[in-house]
């Protein structure tokens, strides 16, 4: 795998969240909530934005800007979509992960602190 296409854990989460939400629905709030509810760990909006910025630098995501919502106080949003390269990288990471975990049974940790 060429240097620069490596994905860090949180980058993977963000891209997976974008993929799950689908085009048109993925933006800061939804991505943050998606990761928080699914992983159960608190996620800072700043971390999401910083990661999106980094993914954008790598060319894995693209941004578009929505029209303001047609309600009172509605606002425009910065929407996120996976690029072709992004999809490839995500596919690669996820399938590598799947191959690594295939047939593996992780024993529960014993004696650890609760």
């Amino acid at each position: 795998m060429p240097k620069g296409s490596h994905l860090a854990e949180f980058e993977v989460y963000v891209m997976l969240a974008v993929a799950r939400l689908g085009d048109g629905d993925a933006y800061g709030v939804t991505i943050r909530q998606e990761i928080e509810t699914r992983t159960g760990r608190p996620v800072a909006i700043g971390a999401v934005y910083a990661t999106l910025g980094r993914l954008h630098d790598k060319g894995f995501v693209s941004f578009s800007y929505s029209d303001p919502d047609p309600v009172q106080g509605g606002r425009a949003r910065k929407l996120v979509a996976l690029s072709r390269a992004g999809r490839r990288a995500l596919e690669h990471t996820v399938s590598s992960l799947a191959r690594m975990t295939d047939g593996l049974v992780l024993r529960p940790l014993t004696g650890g602190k609760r």
Partner: protein
Amino acid sequence: MTPIPPRIPRALLARASEPDDGKWLLGDLDEEYASLAATDLRYARRWYWHQAFASLLPLVRRRFDRRPLSTPATRARPEMLNGFRTELRHAVRFALRTPAPTAAIVLTMALGIGATAAVSPVVWKLLLQPIPVRQPERVLAVYRVVEGTGTIIPSVSYLDLQDWRRRTRGLSALAPYTGGEGTLITREGPVAVNSVQIGEDFFKVLGSRFTLGRAFSADEFVDGAPSVAVISGAMWQREFGGDTTIIGRPIELASGRVTVVGVVAPGEFTLPLGSADLWVPLHVQTSGPNAWQGSRGTQWLEAVARVRPDVEPAAAMAELRAVDAGVQREFPRSSNVITVLGVEPLQDHIAGPVRTTLVFLAAAVVIVLLVVCTNIANLRLAQAQARQGEFAMRAVLGAGFGRLRRQILVESMVLTIAGAVVGVLLARPLLRGLLALYPGRLPRVDEIQLGPGLALWSLGVAVVAGIAFAIPQFVHVVRMDAGRLVKEGERGTSSRAQHLVRRGMVVVQLALSVVMLVSSGLLVRTFLKVSSVPAGFDPRGVLSFGLSAPDVRYPNLQATEQLYRDLGDRLKGLPGVRGVEATNALPLTSNPWRNGLPAPNADPGSPDIPVNMRLVTSGYLQLLRVPLVRGRWIAESDDEAAPGVVMLNEALAAKLFPGEDPIGRVIPMGGPNGKTVVGIVGNIHHGSLTAPTDNEVYAPFRQMGVRRSRVLAMRVDGDPARFTEDVRRVVRELDPQLPIRAMRSLDEIVSVAVAPQRFRAAFLGSLAVLALTLAAIGVYGVMSYAVSERTRELGIRVALGESPTRIRRHVALEGLQLAALGSTVGAAGVWVAARALRSFMFEIGTGDPWTLGAVAVVLTAVTVLASDGPARRAGRVDPLTAMRGR
């Protein structure tokens, strides 16, 4: 209605995020906040704060990562270490390339660390660390306090002590002890040792551990029991080479042979502090010549107690006070000063006398540390501004911001750690100097050591300081606009805010220096005042030393008199010796013997006038050149067969016989016939130079029983130190088993008496000079930076015809403005400090005009000097060069 999110975290986030990203991020956050706030506003606000803080780090990191304009977006981690080495090399090279600021920072840091490292263990040991005994809070010191004056009498009477022991419930042990002079006879000759008599429970109170043997048993306190001793670990090693077969063996003391029954573990906490060599059982004599030991009025025993484990120390202290009040009522004292019981934890009792001085030391060091910190921050800020160009160039050439950041940090660390290392090396000599300068001995000083813990702590401080002092540069680098800086020609201009910060720091430094200068000025003035107090006697050319004749070989008055007469004759035979006389206590040394005389025309039961008893040989007062005011001197003929006579000092004569002629009057002391006053002498400062003179009675030795311990005073030609060897030889020839104590000149004694004032003045004075020097560096730095930044403006002014002298004056005035501002801010601190120092001051007010005047002059002079260099440079600006922009 949409709730408004908390403003502060919002502003923080707006600054932290990328400019074109900020509004989207905030919009998203607001959206979630609004829906949360609809159900629980307080939770929503907490959530918002939390989000903001958790977002700061990733956002800021992202901004730094974004900076490199043309580098690959990621950097492989393994290069970290290599990068670090490069940066370390860069940092050292840079530090060496700019030796002046490097030296300034390293030295400043070293002085700060060194001063703290030297003073903090002393403060820690004495004020904070418990004394090393089991349950230290349960060990109490018991003493008496003079009612009214609050003067502490460190001892209690034997009978009182026995009554307390019987009547209290809250104490598990209560023991007297009293230090005494002793002589150990070794093969090499006599050695003066401190032999302490102790009560039965003494080691139980302290919980002392024994290396060998045991503490005394009860039957060893019975009269007629065989003589036994417990020796200290230090003496065991020093005199007996740690011989483990010493238990049960006899050792020779001048007072007789004693058997060693125990050795206290070396390093164990013992009393009296740090000076006990051996302990022997206390035998109180209730009859015979030493019957005074059993009298209720004689307070001669120090006492310590241990509180029972199931009793609160406070309750035990209250009980003891109540019991003592009962004892005092039951056995009213016949005379003397009225005292009440004093009882407090031994820890406080030990630290008490030095507490104010230690707090003073600590405060002074903290102020210096503040000056040090502002100074380093200032120097680093100046460096940051000077190097903007360099950093900008490197940023443009592709150095990542992470990399620049690391380099700044490493540079900062190299400087502070180098400073800390030098500081730790400085700590030991500084501590030694401090202790040498310290008058007398600090309690527990032997326990003080500069261990690796302190070095480690100093290193930790250096790391924290390194990070702290890197922050101003981080801010600079983050804010700088690399492209513009490079275009502008490698030197940046500082914003108004940065300028204000630097000036502010210099003003703080000057203010702190003013506080230090005024404080030390007041103490220097005090020292001068105390030094110029007339002592009442002539200390020049007098050598003194103590002797005590052991009673086994000098059993009576005749033998003792013979010894001292022979010694006097032999010493007088030495060339250059003018006279040899003796007393029981020299002026300005210990004050062992207090007595009381009834006031004239007083009601029965009113307190006596306290007097000090001084025993003298017939020529002693003449030898000290004390003036005779009336009557005659004590004569050789005033011997044991003649009627008892005394001389009084003027202060006492005026109190006992106001407006009358005291000569020929009889005072009630020393037997039924009293003593006749034959002469009046001038006042001597016997106790201390700062206290009013005491009431003194001088009586001839020979009329006051057997006095084996004496202090001899020799008036000699030239330097008294030249005679020490002769004195030792003469004493050795006369009695080889007689140890000499405390040989020193009277001049030395007088200088020791002003030592506390000298110590405080010297200590604070040197710190004040240090603070002022640092402040001067600060002034210089700020002024030269201001000048170099305004070169263009100054050039224009020169071109427009303004004279260089005027420009120079203008710049110097700016420096003085800083000084004026600093003094104004410092005035508040001075007000506080001068009041805190009042107890150390003598015969001057807190607003002493001489001190304030001197400080004003010094401060002005130093500021003018510090800003003169930059001012001259300003005057020499060449308009053409300046306007060309370089």
